């Protein structure tokens, strides 16, 4: 068992990291931070999850969000998808293992993966609306968000949701406010089986390795860690008993990366576009300087007069 974080002191304490620890800021640049924070990670061991949804409740509680009472759609997922209020969601899958013919009930806690290479941040056009700290947390700064929904298109995991009320994007913050005062995320705190643990990313990997070894000894030959390299690794990782097929866990992408369409839009198009516009203006300017204005001559006016008079006179 990974030791849970101790209960914090109730005395107010200053945040241990902040603006000065940003490594990326959307649509703007930040000075290189003077220190590197320890990278953190949340490790979700799906094999230990009992589907109690305490994490969802804790998330709503801590973030002071309320989800509307929904409808039963014949599945355990509640609400049926992530929403602007529901930053984390247990997704339930009934899967028949073709090898054993056993019905396996797969439960995955979905939410922001806090990618090392965040697609949302890359896509965001609003300066400072999405930030990334050197500890790996990717956070939305709502006062800078313009609600365009570009982050939704940038995200390889389909996580951000735009509020219909204030038109701003919402997602899991990895409880950056709690982490800043030495606590762990609310979901990890609430989890009764330690399926969710939180700590330095290196520790989480070591803890995961032990869990994977244990799972393998119990017959899950393909047990493994989900820390996808296509997005530079993530700061929310899964221990999966079938790590060779992440897609069976409610469509967890096998090799997530920022869509090439988004890369093209935020890469070549952005620069080539402005270059094209500037070139057209420049060519126009140069052409005018070289050729001079195209003026109507007196002869043109005389010709027009003659044409008009010929016709008028001819009738």
């Amino acid at each position, binding site marked *: 068992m990974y030791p849970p974080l101790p209960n914090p002191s109730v005395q107010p304490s200053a945040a241990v990291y902040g603006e000065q620890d940003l490594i990326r800021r959307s649509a703007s640049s930040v000075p290189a931070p003077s220190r590197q924070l320890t990278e953190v990670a949340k490790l979700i061991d799906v094999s230990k999850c009992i589907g109690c949804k305490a994490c969802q409740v804790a998330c709503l509680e801590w973030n002071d969000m309320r989800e509307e009472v929904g409808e039963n759609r014949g599945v355990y997922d509640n609400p049926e998808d992530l929403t602007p209020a529901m930053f984390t969601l247990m997704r339930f899958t009934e899967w028949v293992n073709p090898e054993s013919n056993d019905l396996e009930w797969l439960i995955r806690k979905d939410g922001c993966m806090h990618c090392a290479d965040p697609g949302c941040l890359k896509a965001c056009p609003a*300066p400072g609306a999405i930030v990334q700290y050197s500890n790996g947390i990717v956070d939305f700064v709502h006062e800078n968000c313009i609600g365009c929904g570009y982050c939704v298109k940038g995200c390889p995991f389909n996580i951000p949701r735009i509020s219909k009320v204030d038109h701003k994007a919402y997602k899991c913050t990895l409880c950056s406010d709690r982490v800043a005062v030495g606590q762990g995320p609310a979901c990890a705190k609430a989890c009764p089986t330690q399926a969710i643990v939180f700590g330095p990313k290196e520790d989480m990997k070591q803890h995961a390795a032990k869990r994977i070894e244990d799972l393998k000894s119990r017959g899950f030959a393909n047990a493994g860690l989900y820390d996808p390299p296509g997005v530079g690794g993530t700061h929310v990782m899964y221990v999966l008993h079938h790590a060779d097929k992440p897609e069976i866990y409610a469509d967890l992408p096998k090799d997530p990366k920022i869509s090439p369409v988004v890369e093209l839009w935020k890469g070549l198009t952005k620069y080539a576009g402005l270059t094209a516009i500037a070139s057209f203006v420049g060519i126009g300017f140069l052409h005018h300087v070289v050729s001079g204005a195209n003026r109507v001559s007196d002869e043109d*006016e005389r010709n027009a007069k003659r044409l*008009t008079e010929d016709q008028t006179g001819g009738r």
Partner: protein
Amino acid sequence: MEKPYDVGPGERVHPGDPVTVDRYTTAARINHWITAASLVLLALSGLSMFHPSLFFLSKLFGGGENTRAIHPWIGVVLFFAFLGLFLRFWKANLWKREDGTWMARLRDVLTKHDENLPEVGKYNAGQKMVFWLMSILIIVLISSGFAIWDEYFSQYTTLDQKRIAVLVHSIAAIVIICVWIVHVYAAIWVRGTIRAMTRGWVTGGWAWRHHRKWLRELVTGKNDDSGAKRAR
């Protein structure tokens, strides 16, 4: 004589010194300037969300949130305003035999060797290309725009479709801005043109120099009040 295809309503020759030619009705000019204003506002608001270095343009619209909210609505205004222009001008913009010749002699156009160019109707090949490019691009822009207008239409497209739509939208926007630059530059470079859209008329010499076929059609179609109508 060939049937005049491009003489529109309200176009008339007034003999005098100089000769003047009515080119655009008041309604057409108002229609044009609504379209023009929408296109400029769309370019400014769109560019602010396209490149971080231009985000400051969003201040013109009262900040990023307002820019995001207002941009699609201006797009709707542009669509209908341009539809008005399209219905007014499409016929005079149909491609004719002389347009190919004119395009082939683009070098003469740019070097002001107007004497080497074929006589053209109300619009030359360059203007026709601007017209058709604008028409096509506006359709591309409004359709891709609906796919990324999340406030009302997010449920109708998949995430992958939205990604493609946002890329198509930005490329089409860049192209239409370039077409717009050509349009504006041509109007400035060819002196006497802008008055057609501000006051509605051009001089006879301007029409003789740049749209001689149109002028001939206007003149032979008679220059009394009903002339243009009868000529159609």
